[in-house]
């Protein structure tokens, strides 16, 4: 049973990390209006919610199997950040990531009961939670160094970075001030030849 838990906690941790990154990527693409026209926005939103729920479920499975796998860590070390005596940073990041995922997902279910600004601030925790989960996996993962793990990590970084870059670019474009309308006199100053004649004739 302990062996089964040991292998399940490794696999469920990897799957949970993939689901977290996929959820964040979906949300970033959706909020940045980069989901294309093939699917309706409601489809992407529904998928985003579903993936978030699954990510939380597999994070819970990872915690339960880690506790049952006799890893030498207790509930306090798992759930209290900074309580682990060894690999403190890795365990702390894992606990914080789990709390972040739980907070983001559970506050999205009764979203309508929260003010949008409050919900958005809580929802933005998904990004640091995903990063913390990734660092936790790299520091504490038993399969770090395996080729498949390295390739998976690179793929997840790419999947998470691309929509994040698109989202940030969209924010920058929206905040860039629109060029002011030129007054006719300015147009006349920049015009030349026949254009200047036309501008002058229009006055």
């Amino acid at each position, binding site marked *: 049973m302990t062996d089964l838990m040991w292998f399940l906690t490794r696999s469920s941790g990897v799957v949970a990390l993939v689901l977290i990154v996929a959820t964040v990527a979906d949300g970033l693409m959706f909020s940045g209006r980069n989901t294309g026209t093939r699917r309706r926005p409601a489809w992407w939103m529904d998928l985003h919610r579903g993936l978030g729920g699954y990510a939380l479920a597999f994070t819970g499975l990872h915690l339960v199997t880690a506790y049952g796998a006799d*890893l*030498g860590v207790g509930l306090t070390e798992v759930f209290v950040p900074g309580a682990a005596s060894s690999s403190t940073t890795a365990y702390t990041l894992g606990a914080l990531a789990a709390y972040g995922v739980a907070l983001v997902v559970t506050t999205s279910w009764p979203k309508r009961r929260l003010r949008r600004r409050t919900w958005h601030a809580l929802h933005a925790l998904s990004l640091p939670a995903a990063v913390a989960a990734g660092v936790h996996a790299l520091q504490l993962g038993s399969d770090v160094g395996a080729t498949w793990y390295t390739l998976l990590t690179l793929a997840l970084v790419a999947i998470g970075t691309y929509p994040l870059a698109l989202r940030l670019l969209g924010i920058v474009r929206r905040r860039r001030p629109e060029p002011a309308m030129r007054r006719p006199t300015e147009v006349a100053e920049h015009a030349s030849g026949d254009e200047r004649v036309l501008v002058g004739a229009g006055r």
Partner: protein
Amino acid sequence: MHTPSPRLPDPDPGRLHDERDGRDPHVTSPWPAPVDPLLRRPTATADERLARLAARRAATRPPEAPPTSRTAGSRAGGGRRPHPAGNARASALALSLATTVGMAAYLQHLDTVAAAAEGASLTISGSTSGSTTANSTATTATTATTATTATTTAATEPTAATDTAAATTADTAVAATSASALADGTYTGDTDRNKWGPVQVQITVTDGSITSVDVVQYPDDDRKSVQINQRALPALIESALQSQSADVDTVSGATYTSDSYRISLQSAIDAARAAATAG
């Protein structure tokens, strides 16, 4: 002579008077309301017609289904699908579950293959003649522990020539200071217990220098400890062989094992030094 009926000023001159019921509401007509020639009853006003229309629609509309949990709230009615991406969500869930189980089976397969290749138990050792590796042995954990206990008392074989040989062959300052007083033989250090389990080190001294370090006991009650120690102990052994002393650096992620390793190694070196002094 016809006298027009009194009229009030029209508040909206652009509005047609027959827009509602064909009569000017501001005109108080002395005539009865117009009669529908087909129904033989007075023509209804617009409000009455709207009320009748609403009643007919309410009578012909099928009764609304009671709201369920899937259609409650804002999703009730309207015919919207509760989960537009239901198929994708189900696929993602099935894929996640299959990946979890399949990966667990794959990791177990890898672990089984690795265990078969390395043997049932591991004694991590290293020597100055070769690189420090995790070597497999044919002994089981219990027999290894028993043998360790036996060698604790019987392994000391001090010779008179070791001090001179060690002093002449030591090519580094560290080795000259730390190994010159060691008697040749095999020495097993004390067992130091930390929160993860016992650590016991056995050293082999040849020509006054430590030529081999074996970790005969280390925490192996759980897979995580085995994994950590398989990574940490070779580094600790390599460090001990290089420094020829118990002054080894702590391996990151194996703090407790490193501390216990130092304690046990120091006791083994002390035993070798005591044997040299006694001899």
